């Protein structure tokens, strides 16, 4: 490679600096973009059905594969949540719901939703589809590794699902898998169930690492001409930062999985202290259960942002496109994403205030946690300031964005309660926590996912989703989900602990019965409403209104491909050349209210562009 770099001896750096200082000196000057540094990418084009659709190396197909697999696990998670709500709302009505099955459902629901749905969907699904398109690459830098990444994920899902069918069933240790109980008798699925869970997680980490390296290198090293980092859409910034977080946080999960597997299989004592069961000491001795919690949350907290940051990025783009206005404070948005990502490695122990770790940690982690609130709040301000003085299309996509803002602000503020160490003491391990994290990293990212699907469906399939069904889907989902989780906070105030199979013999908790029934009903309705969405997807695939090119009048590169939907290689003969950021909406002096990224300055000479 290095010899290739020396072929051309002349440098263009001088011209570049000239062009940046003296814009408007002449037409050739203002349109100048540095010549290509890299040779054209060498792509493998599939010929058979198998290489085109199954073992496919096209990032777009891999993205769709990721999405479908993740959505499938999501449906499983949804059904599990229904069954949990059946028990909580109407205890003793369903004899097949024992405490064992209840705890297994809690665990599988949590793990599926956090890791196998949200992480896989945002990074594997949206990441694969959008990164090459939005940075102007032909594909991911290593398409083959990318393909393996998906199939690793697929195997991880199969292993996870297999745990439903092994003797003892899936693990019922809670999604945090805290030892010692996770691998001891007394917790359902402490035999095969927990082993399969740990194996599945390890496979997921390995598979994800392959994909994640691809995303990072594609964004860093394979952008098209003119696409500087500060011209990238915020979607890419969000996915990029989240991927870096994942690459650095998943190792802790891998290590804790390996160590717990050894504790289970070889009876080592990494996390296992002396344990007395039925009057007899087990063979474990001297391990530290808190060590696991540190490792787990060193993964677990960045994991929250692995889910949240892509959502932040995507929602910024959706809001900007549909309110026909540039995103407010782009630079601050980028720095906020990066800052939140960096800080997220220093806050993990706020999940452990009452875990029995040294109480002095409380001061440090409460401070860092509340510091994170500042960039997060700034992002919220910038979203609503983007709406301000915009030209807002109230369509399904925008509705989901608005729903995101409400749920995210709500959940973010309850997060400040829980991050503030002394306030956390009465609230931790209660339903307040459940309500908080479902609001902020369950409903809010899901709102973004739905919005993003309504937004990009025309790109992927060439057809619109049905707008009427979409609005119906939104209102049921948003109002339903809000009425599930908003009142749930108040259960936490009463003091109802989480992970209780049933709870009603405490005198002060009897008032919660009615609320639990209400929440359960709302949950059934919201869950059912998702099938409107699935129906819409299937229906619109064949019968949707044809979208044509760039139906939303967006600026970013993915809408500017020669073919819609984009084909393998994305860009036809020539790679696009980028001249501006992705947010030139409503520029005064321009003919249209949007200027796509590929439009050269000489084509829109009258436009008074402030940022390039």
């Amino acid at each position, binding site marked *: 490679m290095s010899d290739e770099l020396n072929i051309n001896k002349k440098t263009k750096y001088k011209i570049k600096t000239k062009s940046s200082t003296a814009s408007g000196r002449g037409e050739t000057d203002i349109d100048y973009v540095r010549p290509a540094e890299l040779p054209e990418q060498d792509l493998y084009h599939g010929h058979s059905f198998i290489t085109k659709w199954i073992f496919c190396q096209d990032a777009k197909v891999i993205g769709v594969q990721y999405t479908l697999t993740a959505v499938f696990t999501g449906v499983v998670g949804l059904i599990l949540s229904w069954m949990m709500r059946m028990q909580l709302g109407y205890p003793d009505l369903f004899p097949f719901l024992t*405490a064992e099955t209840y705890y297994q459902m809690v665990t599988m629901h949590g793990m599926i939703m956090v890791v196998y749905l949200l992480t896989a969907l945002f990074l594997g699904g949206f990441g694969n589809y959008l990164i090459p398109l939005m940075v102007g690459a032909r594909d991911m830098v290593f398409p083959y590794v990318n393909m393996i990444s998906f199939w690793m994920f697929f195997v991880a899902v199969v292993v996870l699902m297999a745990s439903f069918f092994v003797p003892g069933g899936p693990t019922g240790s809670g999604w945090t898998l*805290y030892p*010692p109980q996770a691998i001891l008798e*007394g*917790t*359902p699925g402490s035999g095969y169930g927990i082993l399969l869970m740990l194996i599945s997680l390890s496979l997921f980490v390995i598979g994800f690492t392959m994909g994640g390296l691809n995303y990072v290198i594609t964004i860093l090293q394979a952008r098209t001409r003119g696409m500087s980092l500060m011209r990238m859409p915020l979607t890419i910034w969000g996915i990029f930062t989240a991927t870096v977080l994942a690459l650095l946080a998943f190792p802790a999960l891998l290590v804790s999985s390996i160590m717990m597997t050894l504790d289970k299989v070889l009876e080592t004592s990494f996390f296992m*202290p*002396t*344990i*007395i069961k039925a*009057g007899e000491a087990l063979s474990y*001795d001297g391990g530290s*259960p808190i060590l696991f919690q540190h490792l787990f949350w060193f993964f677990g907290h960045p994991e929250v942002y692995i889910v949240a940051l892509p959502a932040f990025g995507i929602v910024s783009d959706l809001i900007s496109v549909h309110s026909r206005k540039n995103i*407010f404070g*782009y630079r*601050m948005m980028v720095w906020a994403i990066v800052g939140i990502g960096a800080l997220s490695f220093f806050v993990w122990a706020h999940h452990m205030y*009452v*875990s029995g770790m040294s109480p*002095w940690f409380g001061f440090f982690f409460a401070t860092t946690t*509340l510091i994170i*609130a*500042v960039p997060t*709040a700034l992002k919220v*301000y910038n979203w*609503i*300031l983007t*709406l301000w*003085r*915009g030209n*807002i299309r*109230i369509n399904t996509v925008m509705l989901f964005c*608005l729903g995101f*803002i*409400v749920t995210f602000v709500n959940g973010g503020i309850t997060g*400040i*309660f829980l991050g*503030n*160490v*002394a*306030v956390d*003491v*009465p609230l931790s391990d209660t339903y307040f926590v459940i309500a908080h994290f479902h609001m902020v990293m369950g409903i809010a990212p899901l709102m973004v996912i739905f919005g993003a699907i309504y937004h990009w469906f025309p790109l992927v399939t060439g057809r619109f989703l049905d707008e009427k069904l979409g609005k119906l889907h939104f*209102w049921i989902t948003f*109002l339903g989900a809000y009425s599930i989780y*908003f009142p749930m906070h108040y259960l936490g*105030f*009463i*003091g109802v602990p*989480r*992970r209780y*199979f*049933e709870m009603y013999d405490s005198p*002060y908790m009897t*008032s919660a019965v009615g*609320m639990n029934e209400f929440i359960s009903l709302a949950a059934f309705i919201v869950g059912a409403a998702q099938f409107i969405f699935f129906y819409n997807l299937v229906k619109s695939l064949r019968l949707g209104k044809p979208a044509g090119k760039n139906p939303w009048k967006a600026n970013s590169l993915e809408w500017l491909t020669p073919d819609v939907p984009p084909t393998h290689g994305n860009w036809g003969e020539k790679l696009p050349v980028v001249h501006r950021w992705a*947010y030139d909406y409503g*520029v005064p002096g321009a003919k249209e*209210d949007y200027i796509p990224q590929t439009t050269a300055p000489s084509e829109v000479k009258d436009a*008074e562009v*402030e940022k390039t």
Partner: protein
Amino acid sequence: MFTGLIFLAVIIGSIVFHVWTPWWWTDIASNWSAMDNTIILSFWIGGGVFILVCLFMVYCIFRYQYKEGRRSEYKPEDKKLEKGLTWLTTIGVVALLAPGLVVWNNYIRVPDNAIQVEVMAWQWGWKYRLPGQDGKLGASNNRIISDDNPYGLNIDDPNGKDDVFVESNELHLLKDRPVKILLRSIDVLHNFYVPQFRSKMDAVPGTITYYWFEPNKNGEYEVLCAEYCGVAHYAMRGKVVVEDEVSYNKWLSEQETFSSFTAKNRNNKLNKKKFAKINNLSSDKNSILKEQDVR
């Protein structure tokens, strides 16, 4: 129009719900009213931000709905506004954090006159141990727990001789006297939580954790396990009775001490030996047991 109204209704509904909710915390029965106050403070600041942000959003929906041909304002950045918002948020965050840290500082510093109470958690129930006349708990080790020594006390530690065993789910506490709860677990993680006392901490096998509170209201309270501990987690309840000195002392005198417990056991020794022979155990092994021997 319709959209904005519904969002407005959601915000107003949230406020109304918060004001009129029948679901609120139980009456506090300990000294930690400061925790409740920080929660209230968080509600004022956080709730204020929530309402302002959402109202502004609703305003934008009403005011800037799509009109064909209208241009949105083009203003990529506004340094002054961004700076102002950053400072405002920082001040808000500091206002929330500072009282929280002060309360936490009190939470982890136990007053000198606190009575020590050991809470021993097991799957699935609670046991308690109180220091005797000397006010000190004897050293313990989970490794040497047996039928003869249910708390795994070190036989050689004189502090342990007069320790009071409470082998039931029910614990009595003196009103207006700080208690330092020392948490032990013999198997998995548990958490000793009484909602009315507001405070909680995990019991971790292998270490001893602590927290403190001062019960200030007579009554019976339910103890809940607040850290998932296996299939009967939800059924792991206990009872705390807060009472005045007279009834407390009466209750205390009914409990067994370590020495009376061992004396009682010695009487049963003959039976025990027989039992041990059948079960292939050594009944007095625990007195000479050292860590290394048990493998």
